[in-house]
């Protein structure tokens, strides 16, 4: 029982952590490019900010799967 709970918790943590890491890595690259584009043309601010947030979906999917693992495991 204890081992099962630990594995479930680890699985959920890895799911969430790795997908959040992937989202952060993608956003850092996009953010850098967006800032460079904004420095050249201020009108790009809105679109640049939006594009930076786009990879957040990865973290959301990771969150959903982590919760499913936790509830399924429980």
């Amino acid at each position, binding site marked *: 029982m204890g081992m099962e709970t630990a594995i479930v918790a680890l699985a959920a943590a890895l799911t969430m952590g790795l997908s959040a890491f992937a989202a952060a890595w993608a956003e850092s690259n996009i953010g850098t490019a967006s800032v460079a584009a904004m420095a050249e043309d201020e009108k790009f*601010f*809105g*679109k640049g*900010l*939006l594009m930076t*947030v*786009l990879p*957040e*979906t990865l*973290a*959301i*999917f990771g*969150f*959903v799967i982590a*919760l499913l693992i936790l*509830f399924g495991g429980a």
Partner: protein
Amino acid sequence: MFYPEKMCKIRIFTGKENKKRIVEKLYELKVLHIKKYKQEDYFLKNAVPIKEFEYISEMFLGFSSALKKLEKEGISIIGGREEMSLEEVKKVYDDFINNVHVKLERIKEIEEEVGVLKARLEKIKVLDLLGIKDMSSLCNLKLVTPVIFSTKEGERVKRVLDKKLKNKEVVHYSYSKPNENKEQYFIVLISNGKEGVMDELSSLTTRIYDLSEFSVISKAYEGVRDRTKISALLKHIEKEIDSLSQEARKLRQDIISYINKNKNKISSAYNVLKREVDKHGKVMQFAESKAVFYIEGFIPCKEKERVVEEIKKVDDKVVIEIREIEKDAPTYLPHPKTISPFKFLLDIYSLPKYNSIDPTLFTTITFPIFYGFMLGDMGYGLVLLLFSLLLVRKTRKNSVFNVLAKIMIFASLSSIIFGAVFGEFFGAESIFGLELHPLLHRSGEILELIIISMLIGVFHVNLGLIIGFFNELKHKNYKHAFLEKLSWIILEIGGVYLAFAYFLQKPVLSLGVDKILSPLILLTSIYMLWKGEGPKGIFEIPGIFGNILSYARLAAIGLSSVALAFVVNKFAFPFFQKSPVYWIAGILILLVGHTFNIALGVIGPFLHSLRLHYVEFFTKFYEQGGEEYKPYGELEEGEEIKEKVKEV
């Protein structure tokens, strides 16, 4: 409200003698969106501005450059509203140039002179630090070459020089004390022919002084008594700098005092010139021949009678042609005051094309709902509401911050409502002992929260598809409407029906019928997608489920805010159970923690709510790339002079 304003194309032909009056009238009306004339005709060329335009633009440029320089001095001028004739403007301009522009030029000259003097002073001070009393002693050496340099590695330099002294490559050296930057100045007398000594030292020096600069300085003060004496030179240069700085200060005071007396006239004259330059500068977008003046553009159709009436007052022989158009017109989105701030969310994305759906009304409803669902705390909502109301009062009308603050008023009200639904007040489940009874407990009913978020997603995505369906019907694109929009809705219905029939085993009609009908519906929708969008449509089928799944962020971001608030409260509350001295720590933790959470709560829900609209909602119907309607006669945002005069 669901579509941009209906536009009409207008063409005006008139005699060239009416050019100035027609231009004045159109500028006054503020309804014409100019269509730039591209010369395709031998007879019609791009129009030229009136002959007064040259001196109007000269005055405007003169004012602009002087006002920019004043801004650098920290002086800005408030927007004046006086109407003036061009003759009055010219008087104000000439007066302004004599009292301001000329003095600004002199201030600039003084600054340059002071810069040169300070550079000289810095060099002379180096000699003073080295204990040299007279410059002539430097310039008259024959058997040795003096070198002056600065270094931050004094000890290493001394070791090198000591070696060179023994070898008689260096005759003498002395140095100053290190300053606060650990920089020291050295003067080294190198034996003639041994200049290679400096090659060894160059990596240790921060700057090597050119000796000819000192003789130049000495020559510059030929009339000054004891001009080679360092102390006399220092005093003289410092006196010069002082006197020039005083002159600059007096000039600045004169300028400020002049502007204080005439600020309204100056800013009014500048605004009049700005409008005149805008008015006559854009004349080049019209067309003319030897006898005819031609204007082409767009006006809102509701204004056509007024425009015709007003132009006929200028000359009743003017020929005006107006017709309604279905496409290729600028997008004009006049909204009621309540929803107009939300147009900003379209501006940062892209305006809709003319004659396509304007989603501002939908966004006004759904954006605050999504925001409130994510933040969902009464306390945070209240703080944001107060902050937004303050920002609306303190910021210039229609500026970016003003518009964002107005949007945040709606968003924070929604947060308060959802805060009541979730029973949260700064993360706590009670307000000063009064228990809150949530309809949905966010941290306790996570699965339910996610399901509700998905249902919101299903609703929102399908709303986009339905809007797209009706939009295509309006444009009589029946094939697109049924095969590219309705097909997705049927696909979703088929998918859910199939799940009920085969996986959940729950009958809708009867299990037997369901098991036959559900795959039929699904296959029909796939066939419709194939016909409408080709293979691309089939590949995008998983995408719609991804779109709906994306709405799980409504739950995720909300939960992260709840978790952070919970942690802050858990840290702080134990302090309140101790003696009152500990309460200070508790209050500090609450203040810092909740402020941080509110800051995250402003950015996160805003951006994610926006992203859901742009990516999941707009992509179902939005036709972007509209050209903004810019009426001739309305200056763009940010062009009015603002701020107060700086008083001395």
